[in-house]
């Protein structure tokens, strides 16, 4: 497992793939690049509610590494797992300053995955982005789930 590819590569690949089935398969493949979240970490406090699929999201700031954002997450649905990969490509390893300036919605719109964003706050993807933003906004690293 080489980990989630960089965001640029993901965007480029989406652009190259001209038919939705291929993009769809790529999204599912992306999901497989997300490092596995051990079952022991899939606890209630890490649950992201509002998604039909189950989603666990743990995130924080890395003490060792410039206080950059780290994300570990998982879902039981392929597509959501793919979306998680993209969220990680967008945010993981960034400083909170960087994270604050990123327009994640615009990226999902560009990738034609906007439908998964609709219904803000009741939707897993939107809730994930909101959690990362919340972390970035408050700047304070919280061990484990923030």
């Amino acid at each position, binding site marked *: 497992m080489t980990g989630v590819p960089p965001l640029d590569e993901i965007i480029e690949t989406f652009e190259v793939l001209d038919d939705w089935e291929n993009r769809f398969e790529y999204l599912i493949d992306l999901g497989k690049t997300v490092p596995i979240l051990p079952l022991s970490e899939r606890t209630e406090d890490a649950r992201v509610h509002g998604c039909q699929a*189950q989603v666990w999201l743990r995130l924080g700031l890395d003490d060792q590494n410039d206080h950059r954002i780290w994300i570990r997450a998982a879902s039981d649905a392929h597509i*959501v797992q793919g979306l998680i990969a993209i969220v990680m490509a967008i945010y993981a390893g960034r400083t909170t300053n960087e994270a604050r300036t990123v327009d994640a919605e615009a990226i999902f719109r560009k990738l034609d995955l906007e*439908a998964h964003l609709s219904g803000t706050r009741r939707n897993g993807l939107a809730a994930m982005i909101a959690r990362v933003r919340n972390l970035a906004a408050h700047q304070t690293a919280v061990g484990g789930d923030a």
Partner: protein
Amino acid sequence: MPSTPTALDIASIRGQFPALDQQVHGKPLVYLDNAATTQKPQCVIDAVVNFYTSSNANVHRGLHELSARATKAYEAARAQIASFVNADAAAEIIFTSGVTDSLNLLASTLGASTLAEGDRVLLTHMEHHSNIVPWQMACERVGAHIDVIPVTDIGELDLQAAADLVGPQTKVVSCVWVSNALGTVNDIAAVCRLAANAGAISIVDAAQAGAHVPIDVQEIGCDFLALSGHKMYGPTGIGALFGKRERLEALPPYKGGGEMIQSVSFAGTTYAAPPARFEAGTPNIAGAIGMAEAARFLASLDRDAIHAHEAALNQIATESILQIEGVQLFGRSANKVPILTFNIDGIHPYDLAPVLDHYGVAIRTGHHCTQPLMDRLGISAAARASFTIYNTREEVDVFIHALTRARQLLLG
């Protein structure tokens, strides 16, 4: 039911629904999310538009022409719904904003007037959250309890067990007529008899029945029955609650405001008689008129032919879907409307919907606001394809084809 239903002219019915005539992702729309909400025929849209363009005014207290017209149209809508459910009188119909609002009205007012500590409310394991949560809130307030009629493996009510659950403390029996998750058409008259025999009030959640089953409150013998406009080809934001006259008269008011009062002073307020008592504030006038038009539309159709058409859709869709490997179909009652709730082994329903969407097929996934039923079925979510009068056999084929393709794509 008469024996020879005439064939329905589906194409002509379909042609009346403008939203069906569109493409999605470059494919013709196959709308199979009818249990969530139905599309609207042109006559309903026109009724709403006509109201706004020619008769719009507030109702009841105006003495000018527009207000008289609006009042007349609004009260005619009430009479139309009364006739749609075969109520005794128009005054037995309360306009609400939907089934959820109606059930909250009942749980709140019965909670304040009828339920006491130790009393019991009988629900079923296949209820929609709208027929569970209001009762939990009401019961919590007064210290009453909820009993639950079990659901059998094929998705029917266990009426044998139900009989044992009814006791002298049972004050309310509230039951879904047609399950939005299983498609099962419950023997609602039997449930109402059970309630009546125990001296309990019977309430019917007819959200899904509206579009599929002819409704006769006298035949069913229910005390209350709730409908949502948007699930029977009518507008959003409007619902109708039937209540037997003497039951309505015994209920305290729900919301306070204009129109529901007889007189107001800071020293004390007296309330109007039903239905006004339960219609505080400016009602959804355009909504009521649109819903009545939808009822008129439904009443103008040959209900037996609809039944036959829907039964055929159900049969062919069921047979076809069961040919797909790994399909688990929930709700296998012989008495059901064409709602197919299913999962495919190894595939999360969340993953299914977007793939089908690319084939133009709109289905819904999730818990369908029936989490207790999902628990009972041992699942957390499922996919649901729900058909209605305007769906065709060709659409069943497109659905099955898309499903097969999705399975290939997702199982790799």
